[in-house]
């Protein structure tokens, strides 16, 4: 069962070969056994999950089940779910129980999926290693001392270790794709505006986008079918007709034009990563695709632009955590100002505070033009680079991360080194483009390598097709980390 695809699970549930309660118990047991080792979850609530599973079984029995009815889904602890603690891995929200459902949670609920638990992450989604959590670091199932990537590290580790059939994540600068790459699973960040941000705790509003993490492109398509859709409560949600993201999965790749950005292949990535990515490129040629070099001349500016815009928005988005209405409040303080200072000093972790400081600085009077406005101009240039490139190709391909998973603690002391991990992933967020990561081999230490696919706006179905065809020809995505069979 732990190896079954979502389609197979749905078939088994419909045929009553297994019940949702049994399936949910199976994964709850696996979570419990792995928790001490991986720390992938912040909250599990078997009673609640099993109640949902029973409801799903009843629904299936009535013949009203859909493709996800009864299937357990792990959610990143950034999505508000009514009655569930929703912490964003922060001490600030340790005591916060969401009184409402995020749009994404609502959609999964309506589809009859079971909420399996809330996964660990970098605090407020700020980080590339899932070490910045008030609940302790997440560990990569492929290597005990390796990070799982971040910020959706708990979700990626859970899917990799088969603690959940699938999970949700959010991606502001690579937070779905980079952990998917480092944990050897698949993840997609859709076009900005496709998945509602309502109830998804904000890090950087203009970049944040929810998406699924799963074991295959085919599973991602089914999950995206549930997650995507217009929501009038999110002003940036796109009101467009629904689509079936699985519709093109079986399309042959003959005639596919793959763009390879010269900037990505020039230097920067480790040799083991390069070997795996070049192997994937060769595989695509065998599948009938043609490759060509494209230029993304401003790609070198994406990390600096990102680390101005994201902290700027974050500094404002996180102002609501002031100890006044909910969440953490310092136990002792002298006056209002002191309450703010102590509450936020004690409630936020170091990386969050660092970004609030940077963001406050770049928005300050006298610096705004030089940093924030300049970064916005760069952002437009980066988006334009992609538009130009997509005139000549259908998808852009490269490494998701320049290295395989690094060691826990290795980059904690050097934020800039940590930020450079995002070098390939932040540009699609700045441009609002869909992007995904799929496993394409293993590098040093037997750690997974991720292949990065970027598509044009709303090209999700095509990208999933490309990924699915690759996964039909390869088995990287079926490999299981030792000890989790």
């Amino acid at each position, binding site marked *: 069962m732990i190896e079954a695809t979502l389609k197979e699970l749905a078939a088994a549930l419909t045929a009553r070969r297994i019940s949702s309660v049994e399936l949910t118990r199976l994964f709850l047991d696996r979570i419990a056994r792995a928790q001490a080792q991986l720390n992938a979850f912040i909250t599990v609530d078997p009673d609640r999950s099993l109640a949902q599973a029973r409801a799903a079984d009843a629904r299936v029995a009535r013949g009203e089940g859909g493709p996800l009815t009864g299937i357990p889904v792990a959610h990143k602890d950034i999505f508000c779910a009514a009655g569930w603690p929703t912490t964003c891995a922060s001490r600030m929200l340790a005591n*916060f129980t969401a009184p409402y459902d995020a749009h994404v949670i609502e959609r999964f609920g309506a589809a009859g999926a079971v909420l399996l638990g809330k996964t660990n992450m970098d605090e407020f989604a700020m980080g590339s290693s899932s070490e910045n959590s008030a609940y302790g670091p997440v560990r990569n199932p492929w290597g005990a001392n390796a990070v799982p990537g971040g910020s959706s590290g708990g979700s990626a580790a859970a899917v990799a270790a088969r603690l959940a059939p699938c999970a949700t994540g959010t991606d502001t600068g690579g937070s779905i794709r980079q952990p998917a790459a480092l944990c050897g699973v698949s993840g997609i960040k859709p076009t900005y505006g496709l998945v509602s*941000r*309502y*109830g998804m*705790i904000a890090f950087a509003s203009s970049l944040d986008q929810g998406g699924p993490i799963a074991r295959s492109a085919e599973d991602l398509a089914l999950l995206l079918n549930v997650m995507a859709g217009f929501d009038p409560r999110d002003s940036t949600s796109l009101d467009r007709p629904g689509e079936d993201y699985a519709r093109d999965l079986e399309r042959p790749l003959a005639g596919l034009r793959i763009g390879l950005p010269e900037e990505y292949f020039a230097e920067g990535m480790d040799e083991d990563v390069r070997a795996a990515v070049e192997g994937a490129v060769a595989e695509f040629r065998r599948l009938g695709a043609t490759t060509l070099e494209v230029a993304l001349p401003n790609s070198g500016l994406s990390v600096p632009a990102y680390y101005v815009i994201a902290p700027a928005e974050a500094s*404002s988005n996180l102002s609501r955590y002031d100890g006044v209405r909910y969440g953490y409040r310092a136990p002792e303080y002298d006056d209002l100002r002191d309450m703010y200072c102590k509450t936020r000093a004690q409630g936020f972790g170091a990386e969050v505070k660092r970004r609030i400081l940077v963001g406050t600085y770049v928005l300050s009077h006298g610096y705004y033009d030089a940093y924030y406005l300049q970064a916005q101009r760069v952002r437009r240039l980066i988006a334009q680079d992609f538009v130009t490139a997509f005139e000549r190709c259908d998808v852009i391909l490269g490494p998701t991360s320049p290295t395989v998973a690094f060691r826990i603690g290795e980059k904690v002391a050097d934020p800039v080194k940590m930020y450079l991990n995002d070098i390939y992933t932040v540009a699609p967020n700045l441009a609002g483009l869909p992007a995904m990561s799929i496993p394409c081999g293993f590098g040093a230490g037997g750690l997974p390598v991720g292949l990065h696919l970027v598509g044009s706006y709303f090209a999700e179905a095509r990208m999933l097709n490309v990924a699915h065809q690759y996964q039909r020809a390869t088995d990287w995505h079926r490999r299981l980390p030792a000890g989790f069979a």
Partner: protein
Amino acid sequence: MEWETVIGLETHAQLSTRSKMFSGAATAFGAAPNTQASAVDIALPGVLPVANRGAVERAIRFGLAVGATIRRQSVFARKNYFYPDLPKGYQISQYEAPIVQGGSITILTAAGERSIRLTRAHLEEDAGKSLHEDFHGMTGIDLNRAGTPLLEIVSEPDMRSAEEAVAYARALHSLVRWIDICDGNMQEGSFRCDANVSVRPQGAGRLGTRCEIKNLNSFRFLERAIEFEVRRQIEILEAGGVIVQETRLYDPERDETRSMRTKEEAHDYRYFPDPDLLPLAVSDAWIEAVGAKLPELPEAKRSRYQAELKLSAYDSVTLTQTRELAEYFERTLLAGAGAAISAKLAANWVMGELSARLNEEGRDASQAAVDPARLGGLLARIQDGTISGKIAKEVFDAMWAGEGDADAVIEKRGLKQISDAGALEAIVAAVVAANPKSVEEFRAGKEKAFNALVGQVMKATQGKANPAQVNELLRKKLGG
């Protein structure tokens, strides 16, 4: 030295939408604390704002009414600062690209008509309320008001006296009610002003350093705060001091302004476009549709009253002080149309008796105890000679007290004018016979004596005699 006062006003008008600027919570005043605060208003993690279309439409209405430019794309920005009654830690407002740009308001003072230019008007949300009184050593927070839609209307520094500032505030107050975008309730804070006040030597080109006086929620406070502030600034300057740019608060109990914070203490609000909201797009079609629904505006009415009804500029401005008064006047005119009452007669009664009564009772014209149809009926009886203007006042009072329409009051009280020549002739003859001295004086050329005789006739008829007829009969009798 002669000093010139320079004043600009920033006015917050609460828009009369049922729900808030960015959430679906109700805006009604006076509910129990925090019962009208939704997840969005409380700023729970993960919630997002959605702009209220009704509020945007009201801003467009205002822009059209003041002849401003409506931006086809305006931008919501975040104004960041920490305060317990500001749930998100920022206020959503408009900064660099407000929806309404320019425009003007006409004011009338003793010196005549003037046009005051507007800089801009922008949409924003209100904060909640901090309650310090009821909690020992603590502060209570009521977020019912948080997120209430406001239109902040900013004038150019075009006013030169407290009187002009009040005239502007009144005209603006009247206009926002006229176009039905704000209830204008100043006690509940639906319409409040901040005044930027500076002084400079008469004739100087450069503006003096200004102080901003916050939260003036009555016209009287606005006037007194400005007067105090002008005196304070002039005293400082004449003593050789300098004005410190600062925000000051008016204390009505002590009738003075005092410092809240200086420029150095001012916040850096770190404005930036709100990434949760797309630029606010307003189409030509939308603007056109809003314009088509606008009522006739005060200025248009004024021109029409002067051109078509031949009323004076003063009367036209007075009648258009509020939409209720203007509508009352027009309905009165319509009700008296059968008797062809003159516009001037109607205007005099609306501005005179009616307005006096309304002022006494603190009501507006739509709440008058005598409706326009009844006033029109009364004026028709003046016009057709049934009663004199003097008797009409008595009838009006009776109508106000609820005694029915004009005809009923005239009938019941027997106030019908005596126009029967035979009856009047007898009374005139009797008066002439009883007042030989006056008759003699009149014949000696004293016109005053004639008036005394008229008075005697009116007295004898309890004022019901038709004065024109009395004049005529008396002259005939005296052989004049």
